[in-house]
């Protein structure tokens, strides 16, 4: 019994003693880029001299990875455009210098992200995470910036959200153009889910910015604000409905059929979730209608400015929102093309699977 107690005490003493070396090892392991972690960690273990040596080697290795990964010829151009886009989105509420500093911090965060991304796995998913990183970094940095002088955080939340979405999403769409994966058609089927999320992100940013624009340009007509906020959602749903055969559109319940192959059914459902260039006149009109609706608040703001009734218009908000919506509208052409490529790849895959089903199973020779 006495032995047992002493063992427990010994164990407790061991737990209390902090092993700094283990903590350092864990931090270093966590800091190393995942795609070369195993090799670097093995080398560090083999050539370990002291904790300081390990820290120095880790910093050097990370510096080298960042430098080498961002050495592509397109990188400087992309970094400048992304910084300018973010700076412009922040100019509504900040001085150019502060906006530039914040944009620089976000760009530095994205640069580190680029360095840590495995080049083999670079695809549309990376773009999605670029957008999430940029928006989150912008939001956090702005919150910290607001907290510093006054503490009026609640009042600042709406414009922080709007500026983060406008700057982060626009910069990420630019990144998508610079860092397009080499064979989009080959990877389109695997990337379906990510491309769907890109569509959702694009649409969500448009709707949020539209709502913010409606708030920034006050309307006197009752019900117009609700109409302008809700109409783009309705139009987008109608656009998706155009692509679906039968009733219910993309949101209809998924019915299982015994006369159709499951892969074919799955492809049909996916076909209704991505908007492709419309072939019918109604589809084209709906698409144009969506963008016309997005432009209404800005047209109203211009009209009020022309007739000198713009006293209540928040121009600091209207300008970056208009810029971001313009950028997003231009990117719609690319996203639509991406959707069409994805669906094409999907159909190809369905054909392959159906052809494989038609083939008789190969006979195996039994040498028993």
């Amino acid at each position, binding site marked *: 019994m006495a032995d047992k107690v002493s063992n427990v005490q010994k164990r407790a003493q061991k737990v209390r003693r902090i092993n700094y070396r283990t903590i350092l090892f864990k931090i270093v392991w966590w800091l190393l*880029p995942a*795609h*070369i972690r*195993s*090799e*670097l*960690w*093995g*080398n*560090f*273990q*083999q*050539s370990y001299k002291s904790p300081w040596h390990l820290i120095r*080697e880790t910093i*050097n*290795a*990370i*510096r*080298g*990875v*960042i*430098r*080498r*990964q961002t050495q592509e010829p397109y990188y400087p151009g992309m970094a400048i455009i992304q910084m300018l886009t973010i700076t412009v989105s922040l100019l509504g509420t900040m001085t150019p210098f502060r906006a530039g500093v914040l944009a620089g911090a976000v760009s530095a965060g994205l640069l580190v992200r680029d360095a840590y991304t495995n*080049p*083999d796995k670079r695809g549309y998913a990376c773009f999605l995470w670029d957008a999430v990183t940029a928006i989150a970094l912008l939001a956090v940095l702005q919150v910290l910036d607001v907290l510093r002088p006054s503490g009026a955080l609640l009042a600042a939340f709406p414009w922080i959200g709007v500026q983060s979405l406008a700057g982060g999403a626009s910069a990420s769409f630019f990144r998508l153009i610079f860092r397009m994966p080499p064979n989009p058609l080959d990877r389109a089927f695997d990337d379906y889910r990510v491309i769907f999320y890109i569509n959702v992100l694009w649409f969500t940013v448009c709707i949020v910015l539209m709502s913010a624009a409606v708030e920034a340009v006050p309307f006197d007509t009752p019900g117009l604000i609700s109409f302008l906020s809700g109409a783009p959602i309705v139009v987008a749903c109608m656009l998706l409905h155009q692509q679906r055969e039968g009733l219910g559109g993309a949101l209809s319940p998924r019915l299982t059929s015994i006369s159709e192959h499951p892969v074919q059914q799955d492809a049909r459902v996916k076909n209704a979730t991505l908007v492709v260039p419309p072939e019918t006149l109604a589809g084209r009109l709906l698409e144009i209608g969506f963008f016309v609706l997005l432009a209404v608040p800005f047209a109203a703001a211009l009209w009020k400015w022309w007739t000198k009734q713009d006293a209540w218009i928040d121009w600091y908000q209207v300008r970056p929102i208009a810029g971001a919506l313009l950028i997003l509208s231009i990117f719609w052409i690319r996203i639509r093309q991406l959707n069409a490529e994805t669906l094409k790849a999907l159909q190809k895959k369905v054909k392959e699977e159906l052809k494989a089903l038609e083939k008789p199973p190969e006979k195996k020779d039994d040498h028993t």
Partner: protein
Amino acid sequence: MGKDRLADFEESILSAIAALGEDAYGLDIYKKLCEIEKKPNQGSMYVTLDRLERKGYVVSRYTLPLPERGGQPKKLYRMKPEGAAALQEAFEKSKRRIQAVPKSFWSFVKWPIRFPTYRKEPKKSDA
């Protein structure tokens, strides 16, 4: 694959792998690289090795986990014929570059090169 031109650092890494022969592993390549390059970086080296693998110049395989490497396996690299051809092409280009410069140039030039400076001649009246 394997039609891109080799960058300087890529050339150095391929040379190191060529010097080590079959199944060269990271730390050995790094040590060899220290003889070729000024202050090479392990992080840069692995990123470039990955790039060379994607280009189809080298091929890699893992060994079993080793206790001396903290339970991590060794990643062994081997050069592919495409890599050897690219390295040969780079060497021949360097050779042509060296041959293009006449030997007399090296004996003539004294380092560091000093360009003739313009000296103001003293005025005759001063003399």
